[in-house]
């Protein structure tokens, strides 16, 4: 039996055709997987900045500590559901009454959109915010920061439930970074 006739017999079998089909489909899907891997993962973290009034400081000494922060992480990012390349973070953190929707790539490659919603589903003042080329090479930044406005009541609540004695909240911030 010649090689050509042997191939003809093999390809003629249904099982062989199925294997060939799977192999071809697998190779065809490789570029798509590689492209998805190029889209970086996203990490969203809330930073609660504060300073602490230091005890026992001598007269003339610095009364407050250096600035520091506590953190709370938003849920991990997932692939965008609209079939486009992109990453999405949706979720809440324990000490803020807001929902976060962070989307990288939904409005064009590299475009970051951040929306913060109140319990009523209304965007927080100043949101949504959009940053073009948020993590591109031209944009030197390795992370993007967003100020989160807090009312005096919310500030007092955070100091009571998250911070420690003598610690004063100065600012709440969302930091979005790529995980690559």
């Amino acid at each position, binding site marked *: 039996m010649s090689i050509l006739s042997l191939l003809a017999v093999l390809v003629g079998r249904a099982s062989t055709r199925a294997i060939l089909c799977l192999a071809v489909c697998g190779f065809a899907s490789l570029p798509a997987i590689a492209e998805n891997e190029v889209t970086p993962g996203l990490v969203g*973290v809330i930073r609660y*900045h*504060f*300073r*602490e*009034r*230091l*005890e*026992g*400081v*001598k007269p*003339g*000494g*610095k*009364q*407050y*500590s*250096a*600035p*520091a*922060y506590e*953190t709370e992480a938003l849920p991990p990012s997932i692939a965008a559901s609209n079939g486009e390349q992109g990453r999405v973070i949706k979720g809440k953190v324990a000490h803020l009454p807001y929902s976060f929707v962070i989307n990288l790539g939904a409005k064009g490659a590299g475009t970051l959109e951040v929306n913060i919603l109140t319990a009523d589903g209304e965007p927080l003042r100043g949101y949504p915010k959009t940053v073009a080329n948020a993590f591109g090479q031209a*944009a*030197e*930044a*390795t*992370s993007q*920061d967003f*100020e989160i406005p807090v009312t005096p009541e919310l500030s007092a609540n955070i100091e009571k439930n998250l911070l*420690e004695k003598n*610690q*004063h909240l*100065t*600012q709440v*911030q969302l*930091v979005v970074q790529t995980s690559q």
Partner: protein
Amino acid sequence: MSKIIGNIKGSDIVEEDDKSVTFTAGAQLDGDGANGQFGEPPCYAPASYQGKTLDLLANAGGPGNWYGVVTDTGEDNGTPIVQGPNDPCPGAYVSATSLHLAGKDGKPLPKSSPFKYVDSATVPFVVVPPMIIRGVAGVVMGCRAVVTNTKNNKSVEAVVADGGPSNKLGEISLACAKAIGVPAGEGAKHPANSGGIDASSHVIHYRLFPDVPAVVNGVTYPLQHS
């Protein structure tokens, strides 16, 4: 024999046999003390200031609660001191470190002098909590420190120059961050308010040498009893 001075959020603070103090933590950023002493931007300034600042003004507090800038009364309800025309950054506020520097004549500088404090933008320094300052016999403020990023093995000579909160370990100046390859807010509007490595990451190794005056970039720093 080495002994554990304490533990902050999972990081042991160890006094070694040679009396040096070691711990491993992350690296938050401290822009305090930056007043443009060596040509870099100041840490804080009022909204009317035209130039760049290293940190968001909110992190210095606000009227009635100035936590992070020097005030005329020395209290948080005083009025912030603004740098004058002969100071490095006229119009900017004066930001303080716990470590105070003397003038060229060796005499103490007034609290309003931008040069009284250690410049975060150009001097590698370390921030330590009260537990360390009070937990060892030697003088910590102003002492030598060696900071190493274990992810890239970059290391820098530094000075302990500021006091941190009681429950935080691992904070450094912007210059220190840059020297060891820690993200220092590159490209950010306020670098000190960005960047850093989270405290839980335990990739930065700190070694302090109480009672040994730091020598950084040829400058010998004073040991300061707290």
